[in-house]
C-alpha cells in the first residue's frame, strides 16, 4: 500500500522537477539578454556575473539616439504593419474564393498553397536581389514590403480558408436572400465572423515581417534596413558591446513578448492546428 503511494508521489515530484528544469532552461537565455541590456558596460563585462545591480537605460539611449537605431526601428514598424495589413487582406479575399466557389483549377490552387508555404527565403534571395534592383525597388521599403507579402500570403490563405470552411454557408445564403449581393457578403458578413482567424494570421504575418533577416539584408540599404539586419551588422565589429547589442535584441524581441503574453493560447492553437489536422 505505502509503496504504491510513495511511488506516485515521487513520480509526481520528478515530473514537476523535469518540467521546472525545462522552463528554467527556456527562460534563462532570455533572462540573460534582458538583464544585460540594463547593465552598465562594466557590469555587463564582469565575470563572475553581477546578479544584483541598479538597472540603467544608458544602453537603450545610446543605441536609439546616438547610433541611429531609431531609424531602423521605424523601418521595421512601417514594413511590419504594411505587410500585415496587405497580406492578410489579400489572403482573406483568396481564402474566401477557395472556400466558397467552385471553379476550374481549384484543386491545383489549393495544393499550390501548401507547396508555396514551404519556399525558403534563401532560394528567393538571389533572384529577388537581381529582379528588384532591375525594376528599381532594390533598396526601398516598398520593395521589401512586396517581398514579404509574397512570403506570407500562402500561409494566410491556408489558415483563413480553413476557418472560412468551418462557417456554415447558410448564414451567407440568408443574407443574400435578404438582398445582399455576392460581393457585399464578404465584407459585411464573413469578415466579422472570422475575426479570431484574422488576428492569428496578423500575428504570424507581423512576426515574419518583423523578424525576417536574409531578404531584408539583401534588399535594403543603410536608410531602409530593418532591425534584424542592423543588429547583425553591429555584431561584426571588433569587440562586441554586449550591453548595447542586448538592448537592440530586447527591442526586437518586444513584439514576441507582447504576442506571447497576450495571445499564447490562440497562437498554440494556430500552430498545432496545422499539424494535428494533417
Amino acid at each position, binding site marked *: 500500500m505505502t509503496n504504491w503511494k510513495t511511488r506516485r508521489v515521487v513520480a509526481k515530484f520528478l515530473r514537476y522537477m523535469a518540467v521546472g528544469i525545462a522552463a528554467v532552461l*527556456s527562460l534563462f537565455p532570455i533572462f540573460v539578454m534582458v538583464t544585460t541590456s540594463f547593465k552598465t558596460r562594466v557590469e*555587463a563585462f564582469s565575470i563572475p556575473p553581477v546578479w544584483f545591480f541598479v538597472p540603467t537605460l544608458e544602453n537603450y539611449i545610446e543605441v536609439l539616439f546616438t547610433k541611429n537605431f531609431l531609424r531602423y526601428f521605424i523601418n521595421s514598424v512601417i514594413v511590419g504593419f504594411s505587410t500585415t495589413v496587405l497580406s492578410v487582406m489579400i489572403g482573406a479575399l483568396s481564402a474566401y*474564393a477557395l472556400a466558397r466557389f467552385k471553379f476550374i483549377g481549384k484543386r491545383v490552387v489549393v495544393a499550390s498553397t501548401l507547396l508555396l508555404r514551404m519556399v525558403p527565403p*534563401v532560394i*528567393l*534571395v538571389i533572384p529577388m536581389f537581381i529582379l528588384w534592383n532591375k525594376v528599381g525597388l532594390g533598396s526601398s521599403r516598398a520593395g521589401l514590403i512586396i517581398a514579404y507579402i*509574397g512570403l506570407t500570403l500562402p500561409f494566410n490563405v491556408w489558415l483563413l480558408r480553413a476557418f472560412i470552411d468551418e462557417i456554415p454557408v447558410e448564414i451567407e445564403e440568408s443574407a443574400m436572400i435578404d438582398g445582399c449581393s455576392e460581393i457585399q457578403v464578404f465584407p459585411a458578413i464573413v469578415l466579422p465572423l472570422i475575426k479570431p482567424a484574422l488576428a492569428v494570421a496578423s500575428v504570424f504575418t507581423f512576426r515574419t515581417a518583423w523578424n525576417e533577416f536574409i531578404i531584408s539584408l539583401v534588399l535594403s540599404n543603410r536608410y531602409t534596413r530593418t532591425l534584424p539586419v542592423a543588429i547583425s551588422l553591429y555584431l561584426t565589429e571588433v569587440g562586441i558591446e554586449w550591453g548595447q547589442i542586448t538592448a537592440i535584441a530586447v527591442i526586437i524581441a518586444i513584439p514576441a513578448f507582447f504576442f506571447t*503574453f497576450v495571445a499564447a493560447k490562440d497562437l498554440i492553437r494556430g500552430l498545432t492546428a496545422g*499539424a494535428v489536422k494533417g
Partner: protein
Amino acid sequence: MTLRRCLQRLTPYLFLTPAMVVTGLILVYPVTYGIGLSFFSWPLREFSKPPKFVGWGNYLELAGNEYFYTSVKVTLIFIGGIMVCELLVGLILALLLEDKMRGLRVFRTIFILPIMIAPVVVGVVWRFLYDPTYGMINYLLGLVGIEPKMWLSDPSLALVSIILTDIWQWTPFVFLILLAGLQGIPQELIEAGKVDGANYFQNLIHIKLPQIRSIMGVTAILRLTDAFRGLEVMYVMTFGGPGMSTQILSLHMYKTAFIGQRLGLASAVGVVLLFFMLLSLLPLLLRRASPR
C-alpha cells in the same frame, strides 16, 4: 447574358486575382528565374553584362567541389542532430505533461516564447552565452569544475553548439504539437488498455505511440524543412566558420553569391537545396495524394 450573371461568374476570379498576381510575381517567377539562372555563369563584377549560358557547367563544378560536399555533410549532420534530439526531448516532455497538472497554462506560455523570438536575436544571445570569456555557459561550467571551452571557435565544437541552440529554440514547438496530439487520443482507447491489464510502458508502446505516429511524422517533416531554410542563426553566430564546420547549404549558397560573387553557381547550390527540401516533403505529399 445579363451583367449580373456575368459578374456572378467572374466573382471567384475577382477574389482570387490579387493573391494570384502577388504569388506569381513574388514567389513563382523569382523561383523559376533562380532555377534558370543556375544554368548560367554570372559573376557579380559583371552584373551589368548579360549572364553567359553554361548549361550543366555549374552542376558539374559542384560535383567536383570539396567545399560543396563539406557543406552537404554539415547540413546532414545538423539536421540529423536536431531532429533526433528535438523529437526525443519533445516527446518525453509531452508524455510528462499530458496528465492534468497545476500551472500547465503557465508552462505552455513559457515554452512558446523561444519560438516567437527572432532567430537573429536567438543567435546574438547565444553568441553571448557561448563567449569564452564573458559568457554564462563557461562561467556555470566553471562552477562545477569544467574547463572553459571555445564553443564557437573550436571546429569540433562549433556545430554542436549551434545544434544546441536550435534545440533550445525549437524543442518547445515539438513539445506543444505532440502534447496536443497526446491529449487528442480518445480516452476509451487508454481505458481499454488498462482494462486489459497494461502497465504504463505497455500502454505507451502499444496504444499511445501508434496513435500519434502521423503527428510525429508531420512534426518531423516540419522541422526538416525548417532546418533546410534556416541560416540566420549560423550567419550571426559563426558565419559558417571556423573553417567550414558550420556552413550549412543555405549559408553556402548565400556566401557563394555575395562573397564568392558567383550568382550562377550560387543558384545551382540553391537548386540542390530546393531538391533536398522537396525530397523531405515527399512523404507528406504522398500521404495527401493517396485516398485514406
